[in-house]
């Protein structure tokens, strides 16, 4: 079974988020220190040039921090939180064929979710899938065995011929 969710992976995400946060803090401190250093060098003759340099430094450092928080820290922290939240819940194993539905939605402050239909022998279930793993799903119609926690697919394995 290809387990997509594990406590080790969640811990890795947490560490990555922590490292990213430290990097952002270091960037902010470095940017501020550079600006303060330039302020100490202000003279009548270079004031306008230094003001432009300080604004540029401060703006670029701030933008880098905002982009890092938006593109690395928040998504990584959301993944870790989501995984840890599911790891403590009861798991259920189901078999059938999967079909990924179009579109998706973001849980506010958390991950992007895609809807998946699982057709078993008895019924058709609508499950949730972390959008990060959408590309890892086997082609539609392939028989699979999935682990489901709170309606989220957390592991998936293709059933080989004869195994079912």
């Amino acid at each position, binding site marked *: 079974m290809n387990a997509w969710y594990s406590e080790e992976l969640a811990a890795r995400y947490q560490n990555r988020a922590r490292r990213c946060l430290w990097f952002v803090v270091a960037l902010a401190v470095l940017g501020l220190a550079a600006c303060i250093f330039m*302020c100490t060098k202000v003279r*009548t003759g270079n*004031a306008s040039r230094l003001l432009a340099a300080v604004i540029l430094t*401060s*703006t670029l450092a701030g933008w880098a921090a*905002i982009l890092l928080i*938006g*593109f690395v820290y928040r998504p990584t922290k959301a993944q870790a939180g989501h995984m840890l939240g599911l790891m403590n819940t009861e798991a259920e194993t189901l078999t059938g064929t999967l079909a990924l539905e179009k579109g998706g939605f973001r849980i506010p402050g958390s991950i992007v979710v895609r809807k998946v239909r699982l057709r078993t022998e008895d019924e058709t279930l609508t499950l949730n899938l972390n*959008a990060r793993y959408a590309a890892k799903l086997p082609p539609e119609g392939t028989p699979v065995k999935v682990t489901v926690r709170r309606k989220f697919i957390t592991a998936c394995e293709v059933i080989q011929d004869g195994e079912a």
Partner: protein
Amino acid sequence: MEKLKRFWNLVPALILWAMLSIFLWGWIFTFLTDTAPENKLTLFVDAAVPDSTGLAVRLEENALSDEIRMVKVHPFSYAMLDGEPLRRADTYIVRVSHVEEYWEWFAPLPERLTAGAAPVGSYQQPIGASLLLLDGAPYGIRVYDAATGTGIAQAFIDYHDPALPDEDYYLMLGKESLHLTANEGGQDDKAILLAEAILALP
């Protein structure tokens, strides 16, 4: 697509940060590049000053001391919103036709500036002919002669206003200046030092 959407969500924060950065550092630099009137000398020019920073740096070479930390040069238009800094300036360069309008701001020139042949840089001329007298007292030294087109600091000051006829310009001292002991509350005579530095400009 998801990343593009996420980027668009961050755009307001990026714009807000850039604006905050400009305003915050602009505000901080206003403090860094200014000081109390006791510690600075000011020159207000009744003409365009395309290179006010260059002129201030040149004047600082001769006018800075322990008490004076900077020289500020502004055109009259700088005081458009608040006339107080203009009224309390240490020195002025004023168009002759505007002297009457502002004459209450000017102090009579001390003898140190009017006596003999004061150093006037490349703008050499008999000092007697270049003085502006008001009620018999010398109030201004001519620094730009419209008839010949000669004057001081023409690399920094543009004496030609396309909307007005060419006129003489005079260097005056401020009546409210803290740097003229002849004035009420005057603490030193650094305004005279600044005037001499202005007159020494090529």
